[in-house]
């Protein structure tokens, strides 16, 4: 999780002065940041803070009012093969009559091969993706027979089958069981180890610090971005979540966690001494 290496890499994702609105109500205002590759980044903020809108703008799924996005230094349409999108699980009909495998195969669909059969190498990538998320044995199941966590793993496998360099995921941890959470985290760190980049929309402050290397803290405006140690301060969190009493009451707890991250808490308690942040 060293940050030195990342400084020398070209930014994978740049967002410049982006503003966007729904029905004339501003949802994003003048968002400007750049993200280096080879890390897991979280887009974090309270409900309605524009997290999903930011992701949809990056993927070109809605029009911005102003500003622009660059991916790998270029336009999305030139680097589509390198970018994979995982929509919110609730955004599709899980009673749709397709099997797990058919959904993951969609990760190999391209504009140019839609009227043709998938090649053997595409099928291999589908198998590998199913294997990585532990869903190979469920490949022939209809998707309505899956649990929420399994559905999420199918979406993840579909993205992995794309074999991209940048993965944009919308709330992959919502409503999943512990096994799926572990599976997702395992896949994420494997991707990071291959030098790939993952950007995740996430609403849960409690786990954000544990999951991500860096964070983009959002509340319509950009509150803070950078390495998580710098973003997770009392001041920035208060700015993003300020006025939300239920969250504020949890704030001290979250900050305590950020000073002593979850993974190292056990160690600290056992020995009575800890060296703080990672």
């Amino acid at each position, binding site marked *: 999780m060293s940050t030195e290496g990342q400084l020398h890499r070209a930014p994978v994702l740049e967002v410049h002065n982006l503003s966007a609105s729904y029905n004339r109500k501003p949802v994003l205002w003048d968002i400007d940041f750049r993200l280096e590759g080879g890390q897991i980044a979280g887009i974090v903020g309270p409900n309605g803070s524009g997290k999903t809108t930011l992701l949809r703008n990056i993927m070109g799924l809605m029009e911005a009012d102003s500003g622009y996005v660059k991916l790998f230094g270029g336009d999305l349409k030139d680097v589509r093969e390198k*970018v994979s999108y995982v929509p919110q699980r609730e955004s599709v009909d899980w009673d749709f009559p*397709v099997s797990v495998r058919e959904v993951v195969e*969609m990760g190999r669909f391209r504009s140019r091969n*839609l009227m043709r059969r998938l090649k053997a190498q595409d099928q291999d990538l589908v198998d590998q993706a199913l294997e990585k998320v532990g869903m190979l044995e469920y490949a022939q199941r209809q998707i*309505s027979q899956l649990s929420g966590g399994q559905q999420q793993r199918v979406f993840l496998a579909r993205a992995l089958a794309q074999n991209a360099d940048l993965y944009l995921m919308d709330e992959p941890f919502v409503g999943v069981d512990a096994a799926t959470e572990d599976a997702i985290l395992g896949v994420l760190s494997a991707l990071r180890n291959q030098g790939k980049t993952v950007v995740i929309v996430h609403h849960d402050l409690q786990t954000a610090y544990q999951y991500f290397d860096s964070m983009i803290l959002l509340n319509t405006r950009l509150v803070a971005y950078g390495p998580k140690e710098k973003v997770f301060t009392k001041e920035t969190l208060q700015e993003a979540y300020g006025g939300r009493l239920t969250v504020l009451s949890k704030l001290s707890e979250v900050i305590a966690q950020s000073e002593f991250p979850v993974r190292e808490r056990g160690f600290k308690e056992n020995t009575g001494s800890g060296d703080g942040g990672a």
Partner: protein
Amino acid sequence: MSMEAFYIILTGALVAGSAALLGSFLVLRKMAMLGDAISHAVLPGIVIAFLISGHRESLSLLIGAAASGLLATFLIELLHRKARLQEDASIGISFTWLFAIGVLLISAYTGQVDLDQECVLYGEIAYVPLDQISLGSLGSGPRPTLIAGGLFVLSLSYVIISFKGLKLLSFNEDYAKSLGVRTQLWHFSFMAMVSLVTVLAFEIVGAILIVALLVVPAATAYLLSRSLIPMLVLAVVLGALASFGGYYLAVALNGSIAGGMVSLAGALMLITVLVLRFQKAKANPKALK
């Protein structure tokens, strides 16, 4: 089976098959009422085609109808995407507006001529055997049956060629866009097919029948299927079954054939729902209490 009965059932089954193939994707995309919308929206196209050509010859009127069916599709898209209205509201506005324009044009310009959609387009399946066309050395056959056959071949080819694209688009349109698939182009090719089938079919079999055939067999098959290809096959079979059974139901009651076919398709749907519910109750008695 008399020759008349055979042609009526065959024509009904071919139209039902075309409608079931496309209707399955309408049901999956939650746009089932689009057939109804298009069947109203074609009126201004018919009137304008009549005003330009000056006669009621059916080919030019069909072209006008198909063009205004497509216009309705564009209008629905425009209201939904650009004005950000809900899809159902966009459909409701587009087809009533186009229908009203058609009514206005009829009342203003065609007062002396007997032109309304009943006489021009709303066909009656019972008259199918009467409209014979010569096929040279092959003898002769009813024109509507031949058109329905062509329509079925066209729909089947379209669904086979576009299967992956239609599956992707119906399941997850945003994801399709993220892959760089030109979803608008796919959408309009699909809508053009739905317009064509709707317009041609209700010249052959009548309006109620085509609107019902687009939705009912496909929705019944959706309830019974776990996979897309079996769903499409089942929808076609259910459509053909409704055509066959509906004809004899109508003969038995000495009633409308189109009415018989739609009633039977509805009855098959109802039986499906009841059987599925019964099975569920048997598997898990507490769930329904």
